[in-house]
Structures are given as structure tokens and as C-alpha cells.
């Protein structure tokens, strides 16, 4: 059941900043409300006392095929409107929202919009809204990732401009969002120097699926044991095509290269 409105749905909610109403996505939910307490030691032997006609049907379908199809539809929409869409992924707290806040302030001459993904709260949408950029918050409830269908619903509400940039902040999670194509142009994985430099080795699926790797919080390098070169080395072993940016979203150091890369892609 939805805690907010008690409507009996436990699906994803979509809320525009500044609006009191939220609504639920159509039947595409990832709730985990099943019982984990029961015994799994059942046997798979079935007693076929009367005659049974079993039959095998070839299916040959990609399990994520529906999501991939919807992602392709999103991609087509972005292309038609010349929207540059970025999917930002990281562990919780690596600095996705801070980077967005700083980026949006610097990019005020470019029409932008933001889709925020979190399990709960409007906090990140509120922070982004303070920059004046249109933002929509998706609360996934128990869901650990955004999917292509949520993005489709979200941009329908945001009324994206032509020749603009769309930032999607995924749920803070270095595992699950790796599997779900949203239709973005580039996937950006963010790692901060307060995390282990071997994160790319520990979570290779995410680094394999990314195009860009941002190493954030470099202002803290003097205080932590984090070897940037070693981190890059790990990441390149997983994905030799990764492009890197080293920056501090807080102090602004290194932001220039990131911003000019963005502008180059907006043409």
C-alpha cells in the first residue's frame, strides 16, 4: 500500500517538484513484499498419477527484452528532439546530486531537465529545483533501479524542450541499475575518492556498462588513501573504452573539462 495516499498501490510514484499530488506508474512495479520466511526445501518430484501430457515450447526471448524495447523507444524520442540524455549511476553518496547542482548552475544557457530516482523522499528533487531547472522525482519504493518505462512516464510529464539535456539520477546502487537500459545517450558512473579504488573490480558489471567514469571528491585526496591511477587502471581492465573526468563537485576543481565535454555533446 502507498504510505502517502493509502491508495492500495505499492508501485512507483512520480512527483513533480512543487506539486502536492503524486501518481503511480502503470502496473510496472518491483515490489519485494514476498514472504522470505517459508521453507524452501520442497522437492520437485511430481506425482503424475493420472496421465499427463506435458509439452515443451521454444520461447527464445531476452528476459529484459521488454525493457530494451522501451529503452529503444525512449532513445528514438530523444534523438527526434535532439535531447542529450545522461544516466548517472553510483553508490549512495558518491555525489550525483551535488554534481548535478553544480553542473546546472554552470549550464544555465542550455535548456535542461532532471529526473531524480530514489527509493524515498523528495530531497534530491528539492535540491535540484533550487537551481530553477524542471525536475521530476521518481520514488521507486522498494525498487532498486529505474527502468525504461519509468523514464517514459517521467519525460511525458516534464515536457522536454528540443535541443536540451536530460540528466537522470539513478537510484544510488552500483549493482542493479547496470542491467536496465533507459535509452540514455551516455551512462556516467561516479566514484568518489572516499570509496575503495578497487570499486571497478568489485562491481565490474556497472563499469562495463558505462561510457564515462567520473572520479569525484578529489578535494579529499590529501586525506584519504586513494590512488587515482590505480583506480583508472582497474576500471580500464573492465572496460578499456571508458573516458575519465576527475573533479570535485564541492570546490569546482576539474569541472571545466566536464562542462566542455557536455557542451561538445550538445551540438
Amino acid at each position: 500500500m502507498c504510505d502517502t495516499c493509502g491508495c492500495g498501490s505499492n508501485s512507483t510514484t512520480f512527483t513533480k517538484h512543487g506539486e502536492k499530488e503524486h501518481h503511480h506508474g502503470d502496473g510496472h512495479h518491483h515490489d519485494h513484499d514476498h514472504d522470505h520466511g517459508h521453507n524452501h526445501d520442497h522437492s520437485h518430484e511430481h506425482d503424475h498419477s493420472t496421465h499427463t501430457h506435458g509439452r515443451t515450447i521454444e520461447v527464445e526471448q531476452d528476459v529484459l527484452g521488454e525493457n530494451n524495447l522501451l529503452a529503444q523507444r525512449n532513445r528514438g524520442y530523444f534523438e527526434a528532439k535532439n535531447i542529450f540524455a545522461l544516466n548517472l549511476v553510483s553508490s549512495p553518496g558518491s555525489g550525483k546530486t551535488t554534481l548535478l547542482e553544480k553542473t546546472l548552475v554552470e549550464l544555465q544557457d542550455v535548456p535542461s531537465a532532471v529526473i531524480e530516482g530514489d527509493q524515498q523522499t523528495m530531497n534530491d528533487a528539492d535540491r535540484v529545483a533550487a537551481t530553477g531547472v524542471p525536475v521530476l522525482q521518481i520514488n521507486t519504493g522498494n525498487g532498486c533501479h529505474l527502468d525504461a518505462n519509468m523514464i517514459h512516464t517521467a519525460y511525458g510529464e516534464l515536457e522536454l524542450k528540443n535541443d536540451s539535456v536530460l540528466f537522470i539520477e539513478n537510484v544510488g546502487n552500483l549493482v542493479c541499475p547496470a542491467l536496465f537500459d533507459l535509452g540514455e545517450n551516455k551512462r556516467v558512473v561516479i566514484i568518489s575518492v572516499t570509496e575503495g579504488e578497487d570499486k571497478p573490480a568489485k562491481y565490474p558489471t556497472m563499469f562495463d556498462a558505462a561510457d564515462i567514469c567520473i572520479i569525484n571528491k578529489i578535494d579529499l585526496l590529501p586525506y584519504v588513501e586513494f590512488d587515482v591511477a590505480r583506480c583508472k587502471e582497474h576500471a580500464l581492465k573492465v572496460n578499456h573504452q571508458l573516458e575519465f573526468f576527475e573533479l570535485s563537485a564541492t570546490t569546482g576543481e576539474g569541472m571545466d573539462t566536464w562542462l566542455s565535454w557536455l557542451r561538445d555533446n550538445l551540438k
Partner: protein
Amino acid sequence: MHEMSIAINIVSIARKEAEKESAPSISMIELEVGKLAGVMVDSLQFCYEAACKGTLAEGSELQIIELEGQAKCMQCGNVFTIDSFMAICPKCDTYEIEIIQGKELRLKAISINEEGSSHV
């Protein structure tokens, strides 16, 4: 826990196929999972059972076929087996490889029971 959403997808694909055949129930689902697919097989098995509850596939078995990872070297063209993303070409020591197998997550086939059969 994306394994839950994946399990729900699996059951939903299988259900559609079974409904096309007007089958009363599904007894088995055969799934190919690449070793680099980013899916935990144990966790998937666990969620599968939950995802099946109250559907045509309730009580069915999920048969998982694990697929080896395979890569092709972009320098020398060598094709070799890998068990992680951080693999190196054994011939020329490079990380510049392309993964050609191991990311699959494919529903291969389902076994259905037909009308008139009993599945005790």
C-alpha cells in the same frame, strides 16, 4: 534486489506463451544465464518462487543453464573463455577485448501441462 523484477519478467513472458497455448499450467521454465550477466542465480531462484505465486507457473521449476563467458581479442582476434570482466588476452596480454558471450539472460523454453492432465 533486481532479481525480483527479473523473476517477475520471466514469469510474465512464460505466462503469455502458456496462455497462447491455452495451457492450464507451466511445469518448467528453462533459462540461460551468462556468468557475466550480473544476476545472482541463488537469489533469482529464491525470487522466482515468489514471483510464481498465484500464477500459471506456481510450483514450477526454474532450470538455469549457466553460460561461460567468452571474449574476442581486438588486437589478435583470439577467442577465449573468461570468468570475469577483467580478462586479458592470453596471446598478447591486452585488456582490449570484446565480450561475445556471457551476458545472456534468455528464456529458452517452457514446459506446459495440457488440458486434461493432472499435476498433483
